[in-house]
């Protein structure tokens, strides 16, 4: 051994920087380009560090809830992790709704929250909140950084956790002294996480069983959800191949729309509470069901003990706890949706059994008779001055945006307009549809569209809104103006909390308790006061012009579309009813099974 080798090993001292600098460096390493945030005392060191760099852009929202929804829109439309920065106390509590929204819809978010200095934690200090305590059930995971040497590792880990397995929101609570004190920088770990290693590859034996069950089917049905979207474009491509290869019918959940082109003849429309007649009856009557990346949510299953009573069920989900939670299944497959569909495709050709084409043809005949009912039919009078039907407004929005040839992203608020958007806007690719499915958060759509527009500056980003929901995060019009984000807000203004009114009509003797909004603002003037364009259509003859003007504008627009106040959203499976007990619209004589007492108690 030579002298040089014998010299005592020098331990490499990691570079020390202020905590806030380390934080930004870790964010950069994680590929963060944009942060949606709002400042405050506890996070001033981070804002100071942001001021002194250009790699990461900061979008100053007007409410922390909107910051999270914007990050959700950004994440969902790009497949990347959305990043949020809020201050301690009220900043963190304001973000909670957004976090739960992201948790329910499996959206990858990292939310940085300020915290009082470590020595003050627990003292009821000014703007102190137990953020990790409050957000524990609101996040996939959360961290409180108490030692500077943990900072960089925790940031890297948070991004890993947010995007891996079933994606979700992660909070990092950052005491102010940790942001100020010097901390060592460490790069992201290249080794496996010590405890969190979700399974993504499907088990070959289970795939073989699934293929055998599917090939033996006489009345097969494919039902896919947000898991296919989250898995990425390749999963949708594989799904299309698989559906075409099998010739089977397919339906999507609300969160899954866009994974399969909705104009395709094998697509039966959305299923569930406001799903199509053909999708729900096919789910009810099928003999083998393949669920890919959906979770048998109560809005989809209706009454559990009547849900698809005679089918063998295959369930592919990346989250083991989603399987056998509500509905017992025969063939569980824990895997990433895309990898599982690829495996199904490969196994399909290796399995010698053939699909019973005669039975399949009969099944399609049956489905066609259901489809022939045309459950989404409505009548729009075309005479001058005619009242606009909300369904027609969506349909025209679809037609005209499609004619324009522009890449279009649609977000929604929550209510009837959301369901009409899902029913009448035809999605043909993933990641272009953002809606609050699991939590049903009014106020989601505008900030979500804002986040999408930040990620896709040249695309057409439209929030299909209700006049009640839009007021819940209307302050974001100001953000749109500041950053020249030309988001379009398309309000189906029925002056009611329409979805509430519909339930009151159905379940509470038409006693419209507190579901009418008196003293609504003038949305045209409102848009103008926020430096945007305000448009209004009050009759059917004005509709197309307003839509055309809206999409031609290079500024934020609010289009106030005054629609029929009495219109209800059909078909509808009332809470507690089965799929074959659907209520149809007026066009079909409102055929209804009646609502059970048990159903009254459900939400």
């Amino acid at each position: 051994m030579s002298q040089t080798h014998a010299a005592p090993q020098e331990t490499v001292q990691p570079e020390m920087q202020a905590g806030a600098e380390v934080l930004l460096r870790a964010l950069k390493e994680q590929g963060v380009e944009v942060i949606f945030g709002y400042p405050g005392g506890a996070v001033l060191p981070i804002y100071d560090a942001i001021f002194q760099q250009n790699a990461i852009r900061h979008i100053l929202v007007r409410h922390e809830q909107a910051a999270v929804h914007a990050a959700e829109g950004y994440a969902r439309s790009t497949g990347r992790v959305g990043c949020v920065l809020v201050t301690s106390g009220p900043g963190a509590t304001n973000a909670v709704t957004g976090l739960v929204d992201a948790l329910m819809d499996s959206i990858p978010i990292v939310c940085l929250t300020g915290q009082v200095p470590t020595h003050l934690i627990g003292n009821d200090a000014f703007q102190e909140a137990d953020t990790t305590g409050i957000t524990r059930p609101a996040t996939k995971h959360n961290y409180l950084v108490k030692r500077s040497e943990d900072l960089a590792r925790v940031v890297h880990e948070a991004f890993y956790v947010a995007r891996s397995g079933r994606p979700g929101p992660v909070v990092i609570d950052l005491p102010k002294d940790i942001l100020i004190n010097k901390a060592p920088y460490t790069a992201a770990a290249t080794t496996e996480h010590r405890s969190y290693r979700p399974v993504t590859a499907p088990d070959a034996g289970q795939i073989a069983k699934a293929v055998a069950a599917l090939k033996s089917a006489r009345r097969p049905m494919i039902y896919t959800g947000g898991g296919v979207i989250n898995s990425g474009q390749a999963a949708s491509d594989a799904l299309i191949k698989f559906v075409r290869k099998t010739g089977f019918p397919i339906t999507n959940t609300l969160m899954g729309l866009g994974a399969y082109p909705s104009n395709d003849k094998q697509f039966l429309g959305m299923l569930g509470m406001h799903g199509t007649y053909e999708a729900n009856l096919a789910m009810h009557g099928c003999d083998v069901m393949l669920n890919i990346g959906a979770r048998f949510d109560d809005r989809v299953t209706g009454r559990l003990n009547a849900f698809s009573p005679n089918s063998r069920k295959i369930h592919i989900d990346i989250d083991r706890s989603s399987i056998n939670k509500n509905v017992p299944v025969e063939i569980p497959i824990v895997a990433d949706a895309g990898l599982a569909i690829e495996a199904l495709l490969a196994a399909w050709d290796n399995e010698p059994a053939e699909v019973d084409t005669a039975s399949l043809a009969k099944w399609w005949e049956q489905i066609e008779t259901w489809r022939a009912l045309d459950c989404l039919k409505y009548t729009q009078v075309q005479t001058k001055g005619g009242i606009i039907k909300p369904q027609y407004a969506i349909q025209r929005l679809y037609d005209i945006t499609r004619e324009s040839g522009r890449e279009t992203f649609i977000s929604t608020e929550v209510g009837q307009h959301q369901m009409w958007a899902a029913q009448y806007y035809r999605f043909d690719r993933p990641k272009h549809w953002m809606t609050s499915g699991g939590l049903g958060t009014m106020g989601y759509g505008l900030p979500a569209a804002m986040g999408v527009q930040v990620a896709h500056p040249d695309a057409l980003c439209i929030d299909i809104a209700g006049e009640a929901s839009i007021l819940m995060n209307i302050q974001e019009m100001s953000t749109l103006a500041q950053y020249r984000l030309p988001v379009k807000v398309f309000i189906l203004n029925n002056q009611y909390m329409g979805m509430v009114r519909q339930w009151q009509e159905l379940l509470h003797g038409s006693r419209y308790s507190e579901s009418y909004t008196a003293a609504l603002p003038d949305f045209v003037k409102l848009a103008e006061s926020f430096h945007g364009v305000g448009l209004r259509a009050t009759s059917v003859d004005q509709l197309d012009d307003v839509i055309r003007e809206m999409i031609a504008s290079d500024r934020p627009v609010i289009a106030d579309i005054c629609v029929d106040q009495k219109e209800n959203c059909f078909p509808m499976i009332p809470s507690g009813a089965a799929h074959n007990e659907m209520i149809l619209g007026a066009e079909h004589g409102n055929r209804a099974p009646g609502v059970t007492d048990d159903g009254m108690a459900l939400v």
Partner: protein
Amino acid sequence: MPIDTTLRSATISVLVENEPGILARVVGLFSGRGYNIDSLTVAPVEDGRNRSRINIVTSGTDMIIQQIKAQLDRLVPVHRVSDLSTDGPHIAREMALIKVLGTGEKRVEALRLAEAFRARVVDATTGSFIFEMTGATDKLDAFLDLMRPLGLAEVSRTGVAAIARGTRII
């Protein structure tokens, strides 16, 4: 598939990273999702590796117990989850400190029964005994039932610690 509605008890062991908030996370999962906790113990178990073991006795239908396992397993700091009651034979023990107040005949009877149950006397005054007893939950329950008419005044139980028999490890 028909849903099995029979309830069973399950002893679940969870090996976790010993980080702040982990117990709150596990307990919050049970309360948030409406699962029962009949007993819960937690302590660090692996020196140097920063791990704790949580033992939970719970009850529910088989579907619910499978669900509890899956829910626990997806918590980020959880290393391993085992349902000892179905994964093979196992040993489950808990310890109790039992204070019995009394004099005369009842006091003598309490001491006699304690010997029969192999409970140790760890403290005594002329008017009281404290027994220490280790055993399966039902054995402790049986002893406490006997002590009740004899002056049982206070009980402190550890909850169940459990481990698989033989060479199997979690």
